[in-house]
Each structure stands twice: as C-alpha cells, then as structure tokens.
C-alpha cells in the first residue's frame, strides 16, 4: 500500500517529462560526441546546460511531489482503455496506417465517423452529414481551387 502511494506520487508528468528529456539529451550528446569539434560544439554546450537545469528541476519536482499530500492534477490517468488521450492516439495511428494503404479520402471519412462516435456524437445522421460535407468542401478548396494533391495510398 505504501509502495503504491509512493508510486502514485512519482507517476506524473512533472517527473516523467524531465526523464524523457534527459534521455533525449543524453542520446543526442552520445550521438554527436565523436563528431568534429565544429559540429559538436553547439549541441554539447546547449545539451550540457539544459541537462544541468533538467537535473535540478527533476530533483525539485520529486521533492515537491513527495511532500504534496493532495491528489496531483497532472497525474496520469488510471484505466488506460478509458483514457481519452490514448483513444485519440490510437485513432491517429490507425488513421495514418489506413491512409498509407487506401489514400486520404477513404481513410478520412472513416476517421471522421469513428472519432466523432468515440468522442460522444452518437447521432449517425449528423456524423455522416458532417463527414460528407467536410470531404466535399475539402476537395473543392484544396484539390480543385488550390491544386494540392492529398496522399494516395499504396493500393491506389
């Protein structure tokens, strides 16, 4: 129980994001370390300074979180399947995957309908109408008037 309490205190964005950034900076520094001086000077300088402040900030965040008894508002949500952010992320990934095969317009219609449904718009007629109107307006404005070509899928 005590371990879970500590885990809950530390599992939030204030601590996770600095760690992510530290990993990025360390990877960057390792990547440029063997390069000639002129290529690595700026990244090493900026990376070192940023790393220094990140380490300070991480310590401050950890101490603040351990002291804080209240529920952290930036805490990561439990119940991953119900997490709307993760649902949206999954939709985005699937949208891109479907688009790579079927092209922009079919995948976008599917994405519009699915996303509206998932977010809470349950009236199928409205959902379909908004999707169709958007696609038509998009086609006229971007493709016909501005001559821009949306992605064509592998199967097209």
């Amino acid at each position, binding site marked *: 129980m005590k371990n879970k309490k500590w885990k809950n205190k530390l599992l939030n964005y204030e601590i996770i994001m*600095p760690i992510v950034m530290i990993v990025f*900076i360390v990877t960057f520094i390792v990547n440029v370390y063997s390069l000639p001086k002129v*290529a690595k000077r*700026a*990244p090493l300088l900026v990376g070192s300074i940023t790393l220094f402040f990140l380490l300070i900030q991480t310590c401050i965040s950890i101490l603040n979180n351990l002291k804080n008894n209240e529920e952290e508002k930036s805490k990561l949500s439990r119940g991953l399947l119900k997490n*709307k952010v993760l649902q949206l992320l999954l939709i985005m990934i699937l949208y891109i995957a479907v688009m790579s095969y079927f092209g922009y317009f079919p995948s976008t219609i599917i994405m*519009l309908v699915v996303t509206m449904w998932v977010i809470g718009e349950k009236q199928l007629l409205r959902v379909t109408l908004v999707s169709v109107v958007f696609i038509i307006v998009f086609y006229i404005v971007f493709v016909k008037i501005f001559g821009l070509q949306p992605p064509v899928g592998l199967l097209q």
Partner: protein
Amino acid sequence: MLELLIAGLTIVFEPFNIVMTLVGTILGIFLGALPGIGPPLAVTLILPLIFGLDPITGIIAMLGVFNGSVYGGSISAILINIPGTPGSVATCFDGYPMARQGRAGEALGVSLVSSVIGGLITAFFFIFLFGPIAKLSLKFGPSQMFLIMLLALGTVSRLASGSIIKGIISSGIGILLGLIGYDLMSGISRFSFGYRPLGGGLNLVVTLIGWFAIAELFFLVQKKGTTISTSKLKIGSVFKGGVESLKHLRLMVVSSCTGAFLGALPGVGIALANLVAYSNAKSSSKHPEKFGTGIIEGIIAPESANNAVTGCSLIPTLALGIPGGATLAVILGGLMILGVTPGPRLITQDPRLVGSIMVSLILINLVMLVSGFLLTNIYQFIPRVKIAYLIPIILAISCFGTYITRHYFVDMIFVIILGLLAYGMRKADYSIPCMVLGFVLAKTLEDNFHKSLLISDKGYLIFLDWPVNIMIVLIGILIYLFPVLMKFKNKFPSGEG
C-alpha cells in the same frame, strides 16, 4: 516609404488578394472564437492552404488569420465567459457581465471597434518603424545577432514561462531539436542515424503542426461535455456599441500604444498586453470600482491592446528574423514555405512585399470592421460548435498539411510524436513558446556563434566586446535579475533595519 505604400496598394487590391484578405480575416475570426484554438493554431491550420500561393498572397492570408483570430477571441469571451484566445482574458471581466445585462451586442460592437483601432494604430507603427529598424539591424555583426537572439530567448524564457528553470529547459530542448540534421559549417548530419527524412532536420511546418494542432487535440478531447456552451443571450445592437466606444478614443489610443510597445518585445504577446492594458485603464480611471461590473472601458482597453500587438510584433520577425512569440514563429515558418527570407535586407530585396504587408495590415482591419458588423449574428454561434466535430476536422487538416510539406508519410508519425511531446510538456508546465523560439532560432544561432568565433581574434571574449555586445549582455542580466531585485526590495523596504 511612400513608394512602398504605392507598390503595396497596387498589389493588395488585385482581386485574388482581396478575396484572400476576406477569407483569411473571416476564417481567423471564426477560429479565434473557438475556445482552445488560439492564433498559433489558427495560423498553423492555414499553412496547408498557402502552399503554391504567391508569397504576397500567402502572407496576406496569414496576417488576416492572425488579426482575425486575435479579435475573434473576444466573441466567446463576451458570450460565454471563456476567452477564445489568451489575449481576451481581460475582456471576460467586463464583456460577460455586459452580456448578462442583455447588452451582448453592444459589447461585441465595442470590442470590434476597439480591435480595429488597435490594429490600425499598430499598422501605422509598422509602416513608420520597420524601415529604420531594418536599417539599424544591417549594422549588426554575427556576434550582435547571436546575442540579440539569445536575449530574445532569455526574455521569452523569463516572461512566457512560470518558472525560469523550465523556460530555460524548454528553450534548450527547442534548440537541440532545431540542431537535428545537417550542420551548416561541416555538412555533417547530427542525430539523424542515417535516416534520410531526418537528414535535413525536423521540418518546421511539421513540427509546428505537431506542437500546436496535435497537442491541442489531446487537450480538447478531455474537455467535459460535448459542447462549449449552449447559453443563449440577446445580441442587441452591435452598432450602438461601436458608436459608444468612439467616445473613449483617448483610452483606445493609450491602450493601443501599450499593446504596440509590448508587441515589439519578444515573449510578451497578446496574453500579457491585454492584462496590462486592463490594469492600466482601471488604475487610471476615475471609477475603478466599476471595472468588472460590465463597463465599456473594461472591453476597450484589452481589445485595443491585443490587436495592437500584431503589427509591431511583425517588426522583429521580419527585420531581424527573430519571432517574438509562438504565432510569429508559425508566420516565420509560413514565410519560409513561401520562399521569403526575413532579415534586414528584406526591405531592399523585396520592397513590394514589405509595401504589401503595410497596406494589408490596414485593409485587414477594415475588412474586420465591416465583416464584424455584418456577420455578428453568425459569429454568435461559433462558440457553440461541438468539440466532437472540431477534433477530427483539425486532425484531418493537420495530417494533410503535414503530408504536403515533403510528401513523406513518416512526417505524420513525427507529427504525432512531437504532439505527444508538447502535450506532456504543457501538462508539466513547460513553455511551448520557449521551445518554438529555440527551435526556429537554433541553426541561425549556431551559425552566428561560429561566424563570431571565426572573425574574432579574442576567442569567446568577442561576446563581451565594448560597447554594443556588453550592453546587450547587461540588458539580458537585468531582465533576469529585475524580478529578483524587486522581491528583495519588497522584503527589505528602505527605512527598515
């Protein structure tokens, strides 16, 4: 200057450019009125539209969206007490109470005329100041440019971020992300792992779409309820409000000048300008106790100031290539798409462009005035647009905009990763404007840094050269130390032991 204006007039009044002014401004008002979609996202969403356009037409469209979105924020601020943009926070204080008194139309009219006057005043500042500042900046060498950019970054870190340390970290992360790809001096690719799409670095448009559009979607999806608001208010007469506001011309001008001055400073922007102007208006009023109860002055001050930011914030962006905030960074990205290189030589290399910007800043405000009066009955419905419609539409436009930048599918993966990064950083209270500025300035900073060392016979001491460099360094130190000194002064006021 007169030649610039005449050249600009002939170009801006071409039929297609007038259409784009109208489309950009109205689209900007529409997007700005949607809570959660501020000017940076509004301008980001128009980036796909400007591909393939003539540079002048593209800039006109972006400026229309920028100005329109700054004004548009007041619509939701007045009607539903939720600022559409950070620049309309103070407008809520008196705008919403006025709406609740059945004077929503009057409030919208006041906001409209104040915004237009603010926009026109800043346009005149731009017209008169751009040339002299561009000429002055021609005298800057690489070490001065490096220090000025560092000063801009430092100022944004200080002012746009709640915590100095987090501001510095955001700037540092932005710079490192900007350094990915080929080094300008050696031609060696950094942090690309031999992967071709990363060889040239992270694309600016892709990055901005990720940080503004995609990240915002993750916040929008968490909003409780499916609509912003369903409250219905009587609109009443918009014209009456507009006419009433002209009786307070002095306040409009003073607030506009405040906004224009703050707009020229990096890191300040509309968010601070509207609050400073409101605070000044209240403290200088004969009846400060009436502020917050629904008085006209409480709308005039913030709305004049926030629109006055737009023109003057363009000056450092176009003359020095240093964007003063997130929206200007997006505009800078748009300029690069259009093949325009901001900097001190812009006025000599492309005087037609500069003249067109001057004229379009005036025209955009006039279009805003006319469309505001004619379309208020439509604008009132904007804050009621369902989030369920907004999110997938923004996602569709963002993915399209990402793809047409370089025609790489992998850019859409990058955009999601960058969106997640920005989302996480905002949740942890890190400043995105700092990160954006660092990203945009990264390669130029490094280039000026290397050039300074190449021409220096004193090594790193060139950055402390007398008198210009040392003055810039001292200004930077002062900006950082000033709040600390003020805290110290308040703790130990004179007279106490």
